[in-house]
C-alpha cells in the first residue's frame, strides 16, 4: 500500500516538475535576452534605440569607447508593424474565407483536398517560400513597381499572408465547427437561407475563436524571418509605398548576427527583446479576447453603415469570396509545389542523396539528411515526454483556477509566440556557450526542443481534454490508482492527438532554419560524427546551397526533397490519425487471437 502511495506521489512530482521546466524556459529566455541587451541599451540610450530612425552600426564599436555607429530601430519597428498588418490583410482575409468555405460550403473529396493543402502550406519551410517568391512570384508583380522591382512591403505582405493562412484557417475552422449545429438548424427553421444562417448565425457565434485565430496569425507574421529576408529589401527605412524596401526586426537579427561587433551584438539582442515585448503584448491581447468573449457586447453601429451594408447581399458575396479564397490558396500551393518539383526533380541524383561528402567535390546532402534525422530524434526524445508530462499535469492533476496553473498556461502561450529567430539567439548564448562555445547538433536540438514544447503541450492537452471523464471514473471505481488510470486508459484514448503532435513536431524540425543557424552551424559539412559535431539541417542546407549561386540546381533538388518530406509527414499524420481512430472506436484486431481460438 505504501509503495503504491509513493509511486502516485512520485508521479505527481515528476509531472509538476516538467511543468516547472516550462516556466523556467520562459523565464530563462526573457532573462538571458534582456541581460544581454541591457549594456547595449544603456550605452545607446533607451529612447535613442527605440525612437532613433538611423540604423548604421559599426562592427568596431565596443562598450569602452564612444559610439561611431547609429543604433535606432524605429524604422524597423514601423516596418514590422506594416508588414504584419499587410500580412493580416492578405492572410487574415484569405484564411478567414477559406475556413468558412471549408466549414460550410464544401463537402466530401474537395473538402479533404483543400484541408490537406492547407496543412501542407503550414508545413512548407519558410526558406522555400522565400526562394519561390524571388524566383517566381516576383516576376508577376515587377511591372507594378516604380523601380520595376516588386520586392518590398507588397511582396512581403503577400508571402507572409500566404504563410499565416494555414494558422488562421485551421483555427477559424475549428472554432466554426465547435458552434452547435442546433444554431444553424434554428436559423433555417426561421426561414433563413444557408448563406444567411452561416454569416449571420454561425460566424458571429464563433467570433472570439476567430479573433484568437487572427491574433495567432499576427504572432506568426511578426516572428517570420527567413522568407522575409529574401523579399523585404532590408533597407532600414520606413516604407512609404507598397513597393518600397524595408526591414523587419527579425530580419535585422539574421542579417547582422554573424558578423556583429560588441555593441552591435547587444543592439541585436535588444532587437530580440523588443520582439519579446511584442509577443507579450499579443498574449495580453489574446487574454482580452478570451475573457471579452463572455461579456455582453454593446453593439455600436453607425446608421449609415447599416444602410449601406443592408443593401448588399452578403450571403452571395461571402460565398463567392469564400470560394475565391480557397481557390487562390490552392493555386498558390499547387504552383509552388509544381515549380519546385519541375526545377528540382531532374537534379536529384544518387550523388546528391547518398554520395560521400568531399571537400570541393560534388555536393552531397547526405550529411544534412543525417544531421536532420539526428536533430529530429533528439528533440523528439526531449520535447515529447516533457510536453506530454506537462500536459498531463495541467489536465489531470490541477484544480481549475489555481494560480500556479494560470502561470504555466501563460508561460506556454508565451513560448509558442516567441519568434524562432529569438530562440536562435537564446540557443546561441546558452546552449552553445554551455557546450564549449562551438556550434553543435546538440545545441541546435536543445534549442528546437524548447521551441517544440508549446505545440506538444497544447495538442496533448487538447486531446486529454477530449477523453471523457467517465473513462477516468470507470477506472478509479475499479480500484486503479491515478497513474494507472492515466497510463492505461487516458493516454491510449488521447493517442491520436499525441501522435499528431509528434508528427507536427517532426515537420517543425524539418522546416525551421532560423533557430539552427546560430546554434548548429550553417556551412555544408562532412558527415557529423556525434551530437557534438556541427551540422546543417536540410532547410539550412537549402539556404546555404542557394546563397552563393554556385549550386542552384542542388538547392532546387533539396527543396524538392523537403517538400516531399513535408507531404509524406502530412499524409502519415492523416493515416495514423485515421488508423488510431478506427482502433479506438471500431475494431481492435489481432492481439488476443490466441484466446479467441481457445474460446471457440
Amino acid at each position: 500500500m505504501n509503495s503504491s502511495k509513493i509511486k502516485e506521489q512520485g508521479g505527481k512530482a515528476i509531472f509538476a516538475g516538467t511543468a516547472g521546466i516550462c516556466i523556467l524556459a520562459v523565464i530563462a529566455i526573457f532573462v538571458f535576452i534582456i541581460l544581454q541587451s541591457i549594456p547595449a541599451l544603456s550605452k545607446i540610450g533607451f529612447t535613442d534605440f527605440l525612437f532613433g530612425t538611423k540604423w548604421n552600426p559599426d562592427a568596431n564599436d565596443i562598450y569602452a569607447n564612444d559610439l561611431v555607429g547609429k543604433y535606432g530601430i524605429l524604422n524597423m519597428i514601423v516596418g514590422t508593424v506594416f508588414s504584419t498588418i499587410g500580412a493580416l490583410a492578405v492572410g487574415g482575409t484569405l484564411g478567414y474565407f477559406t475556413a468558412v468555405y471549408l466549414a460550410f460550403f464544401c463537402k466530401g473529396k474537395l473538402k479533404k483536398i483543400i484541408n490537406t493543402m492547407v496543412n501542407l502550406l503550414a508545413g512548407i519551410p519558410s526558406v522555400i517560400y522565400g526562394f519561390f517568391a524571388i524566383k517566381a512570384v516576383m516576376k508577376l508583380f515587377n511591372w507594378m513597381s516604380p523601380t520595376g522591382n516588386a520586392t518590398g512591403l507588397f511582396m512581403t505582405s503577400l508571402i507572409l499572408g500566404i504563410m499565416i493562412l494555414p494558422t488562421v484557417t485551421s483555427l477559424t475552422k475549428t472554432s466554426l465547427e465547435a458552434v452547435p449545429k442546433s444554431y444553424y438548424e434554428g436559423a433555417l427553421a426561421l426561414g433563413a437561407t444557408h448563406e444567411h444562417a452561416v454569416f449571420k448565425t454561425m460566424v458571429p457565434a464563433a467570433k472570439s475563436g476567430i479573433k484568437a485565430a487572427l491574433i495567432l496569425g499576427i504572432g506568426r507574421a511578426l516572428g517570420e524571418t527567413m522568407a522575409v529576408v529574401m523579399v523585404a529589401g532590408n533597407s532600414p527605412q520606413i516604407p512609404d509605398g507598397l513597393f518600397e524596401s524595408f526591414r523587419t526586426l527579425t530580419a535585422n537579427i539574421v542579417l547582422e548576427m554573424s558578423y556583429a561587433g560588441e555593441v552591435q551584438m547587444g543592439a541585436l539582442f535588444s532587437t530580440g527583446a523588443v520582439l519579446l515585448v511584442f509577443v507579450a503584448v499579443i498574449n495580453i491581447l489574446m487574454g482580452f479576447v478570451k475573457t471579452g468573449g463572455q461579456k455582453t457586447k454593446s453593439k455600436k453601429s453607425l446608421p449609415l453603415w447599416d444602410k449601406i451594408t443592408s443593401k448588399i447581399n452578403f450571403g452571395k458575396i461571402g460565398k463567392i469570396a469564400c470560394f475565391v479564397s480557397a481557390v487562390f490558396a490552392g493555386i498558390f500551393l499547387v504552383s509552388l509545389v509544381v515549380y519546385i518539383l519541375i526545377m528540382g526533380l531532374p537534379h536529384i541524383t544518387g550523388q546528391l542523396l547518398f554520395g560521400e561528402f568531399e571537400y570541393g567535390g560534388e555536393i552531397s546532402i547526405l550529411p544534412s539528411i543525417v544531421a536532420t534525422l539526428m536533430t529530429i530524434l533528439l528533440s523528439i526524445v526531449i520535447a515529447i515526454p516533457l510536453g506530454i508530462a506537462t500536459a498531463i499535469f495541467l489536465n489531470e492533476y490541477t484544480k481549475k483556477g489555481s494560480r500556479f496553473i494560470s502561470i504555466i498556461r501563460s508561460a506556454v502561450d508565451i513560448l509558442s509566440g516567441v519568434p524562432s529567430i529569438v530562440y536562435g539567439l537564446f540557443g546561441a548564448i546558452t546552449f552553445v556557450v554551455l557546450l564549449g562555445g562551438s556550434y553543435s547538433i546538440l545545441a541546435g536540438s536543445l534549442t528546437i526542443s524548447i521551441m517544440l514544447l508549446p505545440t506538444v503541450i497544447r495538442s496533448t492537452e487538447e486531446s486529454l481534454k477530449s477523453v471523457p471523464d467517465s473513462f477516468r471514473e470507470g477506472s478509479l471505481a475499479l480500484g486503479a490508482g491515478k497513474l494507472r488510470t492515466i497510463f492505461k486508459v487516458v493516454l491510449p484514448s488521447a493517442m491520436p492527438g499525441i501522435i499528431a503532435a509528434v508528427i507536427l513536431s517532426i515537420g517543425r524540425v524539418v522546416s525551421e532554419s532560423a533557430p539552427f543557424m546560430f546554434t548548429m552551424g550553417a556551412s555544408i559539412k562532412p558527415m557529423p560524427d556525434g551530437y557534438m559535431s556541427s551540422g546543417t539541417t536540410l532547410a539550412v542546407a537549402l539556404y546555404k546551397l542557394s546563397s552563393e549561386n554556385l549550386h542552384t540546381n542542388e538547392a532546387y533538388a533539396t527543396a524538392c526533397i523537403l517538400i516531399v518530406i513535408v507531404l509524406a509527414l502530412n499524409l502519415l499524420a492523416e493515416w495514423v490519425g485515421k488508423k488510431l481512430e478506427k482502433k479506438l472506436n471500431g475494431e481492435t484486431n489481432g492481439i488476443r487471437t490466441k484466446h479467441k481460438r481457445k474460446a471457440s
Partner: protein
Amino acid sequence: MKKAKKLIVALLVCVMAFATFAFAGCGEKEISVITRNEGSGTRDAFESIVKSDAGVKLGDAELKDGVLQYDSTSTVITQVSSVETAIGYVSLGSVDDTIKVLKVNGVEATAANVLNGTYKLQRPFVIMTNKTVELQDATADFIRFLKSTQAQEIVAGDYVKQEEGAVQYTSPSTALSGTVVIRGSTSVDPLMDVLIGKYKEINGNKVANVEFQKDCQGSSAGISAVKGDTAGNVIGLSSSAIKDADAPSMNYFHIALDAIAVIVNKNNELSDITISQLFDIYTGAITKFSELSSK
C-alpha cells in the same frame, strides 16, 4: 460588424489595386539599386573602391534611401535576372548566364585585366591567423599548403592567382591530428572547399585525423573569430583587404584576387559604366538608366 469588416477589407484591396495601377503608369522606371548586407566582404570592397569624381569613397558617403540589401549572392543575381531595371554587384566567380556583366571604365572583368590592374573593381581573398598565439601543427601545416604553388593551381581555376612567394608544398613527415576551425567570408567559402579537398588528397592518411570545422557567415565574423582565437587553430577568411585597425593583431596573406562584377538585367542595353556613375547610382544622384547614356 462582420459586414463592416468585410467592406473595409474590400476597400483596402481596391485602394491597393488602384495605387499599383497608378504607379505602374507609363514612363521610364527608376533604377532598382541592390547592394549586399553590411558585413559582407564584397560590399566592403565595393564601397572602398567606388569613388565619386571628387574622390569620396562610397563607404564614407550615404547610400540613397531604399537601396535593397540582401545577405546572399544568389538573391542579388536572382533579382537582377528578373528585374529589368536592377543593378547589383557580385563576385565574378558566381556570375552565370542569367545576367549581364558590365565593363567598368571601359575594361572588361576578366582574370587578365584583374591581374594587370586595369579592372579596378577587384579585391583580395585574405587568409588570416592570430598573431599572438602559436598555431597548432595541423593548422600551421594547412596554412603552409594554402601558401603553396599547388594551392595557387587551384586558385587559377576560378579566380586570379596571387603569384608572389608561392613555394612547393610537401607532405609533413609524420601524421597530423587536431581540429582546424575556419570562419569568415561566404565568397571565399567555395574556394576553401576545393582547397581542403586538394589538401586531403595530397596528404591522404597523414591528415585523416585532422578535422575541419568550417562555418562561413561573413568576412567580419572571420576577423572576430581570429581575434578571439586562443587555441591557435582558427583560420579566418576575408573577401576584402584587411583594414589598418585590424592589421597589427594578425598574420595574413592574399591567396587570390577576385573581380567584383557589376551586373544588370540581360535586357538592359547598357554595356559600360564608370566608377563615378556607380557612385552616383548608389547615392541617388542618378535614378534612371537614361541619365547614364545622356551624360
